[in-house]
């Protein structure tokens, strides 16, 4: 029987509860958002005792469904003040699902200065005081826990940034290679740090495992689903070959590549940081151009990047990080960016928020644009050490802008805008503006349709027509992906390969013995988005917060594109 596991850090007690019927059909983001909306006071301080940190695997996590092992973390975000769901790969979702844990809810705050570690296993969850690993980086935590508990243990951990409750702190998840994936966005690592939990170790030995309502039907549907993923050129060929960094040249050609803190839309050294160059470099150095962030990923957009001597530097080297440090901070050197990526993972800061914050700091004159060694120093000696400058940088792009009086600060609801300029790719601008999460490209990835015509043809990225409808449609679908435990890229075959969505619905029905139809997707998306928005409104947000920063009214080369949506046009988004 699936259960909810609850940890109260105020009195250091734990308990197991039956799953209330209204949550039974939910998973991943739909569930974390429903729980946060039901149990967290919207006006609470995100780092205070009334916030709760919720983890939930996707509905299909733990099954053999391809790419279904994403793990959702939810809370009120200390970075944005909104509701937050951030999902990641790694092994935790599948372990939780096998243990029958529908959600882990962590509430309250401990008194005193002690730190704790949680252990989740077939008997539930236990709390133990922790001293040895406090102050340690995420890689050291994973290594130490494997030594204590065995190589197979799952790990959720925060680095020094989370301990210091920095607003860009993330929560790392161990992957199958004992490396890290991250619940990156929104500062959830600070929430975990506020509850003084350094790590959550997971042991799924003796777990009951998953019982399928109809194993034969599931198997057939899972096969059709996997075939759809392989058939689509993006998930079958593009992503496995070039990784997400394939977007560097695409977005540069289209004139939407944020460069020099969003001053230009193209970067002259784009080839230095392109997916093509990344692939050639990885192969020449004996790394791996294909790698999955979770067991069961058949797309493998991740990779293992080595240095010149063939030594491991980083994995999960994403377009966003490469672009924001490479072009937006003008570093233009994959080796330096890879080292920065590794440092950010170890310290435990979101690589998007931090990279954008560095761009703003460069504009402020804290260091020159292009100063890669300077960035490594800031990460190591300032952010990692928690100096006053490090704390400002670790508070995210918006706060760096405030501290230094910069006006070109790319944030929405105080969360950094990632690596697509919304002036030249307008659909993603609507997503940045309206997402319940603050600026977040993954909550409605309009870039695929704007640039490559995913889902039935190109919606011209430079025109306003159709963008609000596009973003709304994508945000609704994405809730489903985030709730089933699927990675974002399933959105491509789901939009283009007719067998994909029916197979997905068949898998859900065969897993749970349900009779869902594809209409279920829309219902789940609409309900979840409205629940999240109601939380934000109760927390004090209005439609005026669904706006891009003023500087996007300035034209950006090469198209001299401007952000020209009126407030009323943006507000149409919520008309459903």
């Amino acid at each position, binding site marked *: 029987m699936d259960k909810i596991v609850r940890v109260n850090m105020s009195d250091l007690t734990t308990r197991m509860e039956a799953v209330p019927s209204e949550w039974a059909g939910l998973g991943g983001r739909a569930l974390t958002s429903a729980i946060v909306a039901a149990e967290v006071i919207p006006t609470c301080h995100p780092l205070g005792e009334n916030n709760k940190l919720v983890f939930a695997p996707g509905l299909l996590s733990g099954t053999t469904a391809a790419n279904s092992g994403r793990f959702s973390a939810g809370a009120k975000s200390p970075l944005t003040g909104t509701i937050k769901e951030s999902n990641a790969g790694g092994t935790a979702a599948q372990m939780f699902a096998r243990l029958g844990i529908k959600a882990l809810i962590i509430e309250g705050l401990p008194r005193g200065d002690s730190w704790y570690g949680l252990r989740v296993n077939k008997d539930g969850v236990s709390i133990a005081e922790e001293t040895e690993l406090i102050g340690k980086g995420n890689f050291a935590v994973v290594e130490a826990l494997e030594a204590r508990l065995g190589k197979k243990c799952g790990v959720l951990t925060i680095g020094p940034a989370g301990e210091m409750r920095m607003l860009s702190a993330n929560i790392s998840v161990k992957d199958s290679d004992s490396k890290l994936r991250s619940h990156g966005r929104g500062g959830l690592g600070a929430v975990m740090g506020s509850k003084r939990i350094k790590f959550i170790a997971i042991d799924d030995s003796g777990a009951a495992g998953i019982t399928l309502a109809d194993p034969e039907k599931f198997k057939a549907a899972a096969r059709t689903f996997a075939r759809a993923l392989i058939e689509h050129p993006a998930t079958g060929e593009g992503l496995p070959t070039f990784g997400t960094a394939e977007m560097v040249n695409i977005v540069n050609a289209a004139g939407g590549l944020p460069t020099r803190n969003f001053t230009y839309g193209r970067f002259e050294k784009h*080839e230095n940081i392109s997916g093509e160059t990344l692939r050639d470099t990885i192969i020449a150095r004996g790394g791996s151009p294909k790698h999955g962030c979770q067991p069961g990923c058949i797309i493998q957009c991740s990779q293992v990047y080595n240095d010149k001597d063939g030594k491991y530097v980083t994995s999960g080297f994403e377009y966003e990080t490469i672009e924001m440090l490479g072009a937006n901070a003008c570093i233009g050197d994959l080796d330096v960016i890879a080292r920065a990526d590794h440092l950010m993972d170890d310290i435990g800061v979101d690589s998007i928020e931090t990279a954008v914050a560095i761009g703003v700091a460069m504009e402020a004159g804290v260091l020159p644009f292009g100063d890669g060694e300077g960035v490594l120093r800031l990460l190591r000696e300032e952010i990692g050490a928690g100096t006053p400058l490090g704390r400002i940088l670790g508070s995210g792009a918006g706060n760096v802008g405030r501290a230094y009086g910069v006006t070109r600060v790319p944030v929405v609801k105080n969360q950094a805008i990632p*690596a697509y300029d919304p002036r030249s790719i307008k659909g993603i601008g609507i997503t940045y503006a309206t997402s319940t999460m603050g600026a977040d490209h993954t909550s409605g990835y309009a870039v*695929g349709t704007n640039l*490559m015509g995913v889902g039935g043809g190109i919606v011209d990225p430079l025109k306003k027509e159709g963008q609000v409808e596009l973003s709304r449609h994508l945000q609704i679908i994405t809730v489903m992906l985030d709730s089933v435990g699927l990675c974002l890229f399933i959105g491509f075959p789901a939009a283009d390969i007719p067998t994909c969505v029916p197979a997905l619905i068949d898998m859900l029905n065969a897993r749970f013995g349900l009779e869902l139809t594809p209409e279920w997707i829309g219902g789940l998306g609409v309900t979840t988005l409205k629940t999240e928005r109601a939380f934000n409104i109760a927390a004090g947000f209005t439609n005026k917060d669904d706006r891009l920063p003023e500087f996007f009214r300035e034209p950006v080369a090469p198209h001299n594109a401007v952000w020209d949506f009126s407030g009323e046009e943006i507000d149409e988004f919520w008309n459903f």
Partner: protein
Amino acid sequence: MRVTVNLYATFRSGRFEQELRDFPLGTMLREVVAAVGIAESEIGMSLVNGCHAPMERALRDGDSIYLFPLLGGG
């Protein structure tokens, strides 16, 4: 007239990254694609001067052409 042709991802294998090419004035994008040996069905995104352009686009001197296979996202 002279145009710049930029190829990306798998289109580069056995071809080139960037080349200046001469064509008669008014050549259509489709003819350039054929001239570099790419099947139209393989094209995921075709841009002229950074903007989406259909295969029937009549090219002008100095145009920059960008051709991508079907790729994915970030």
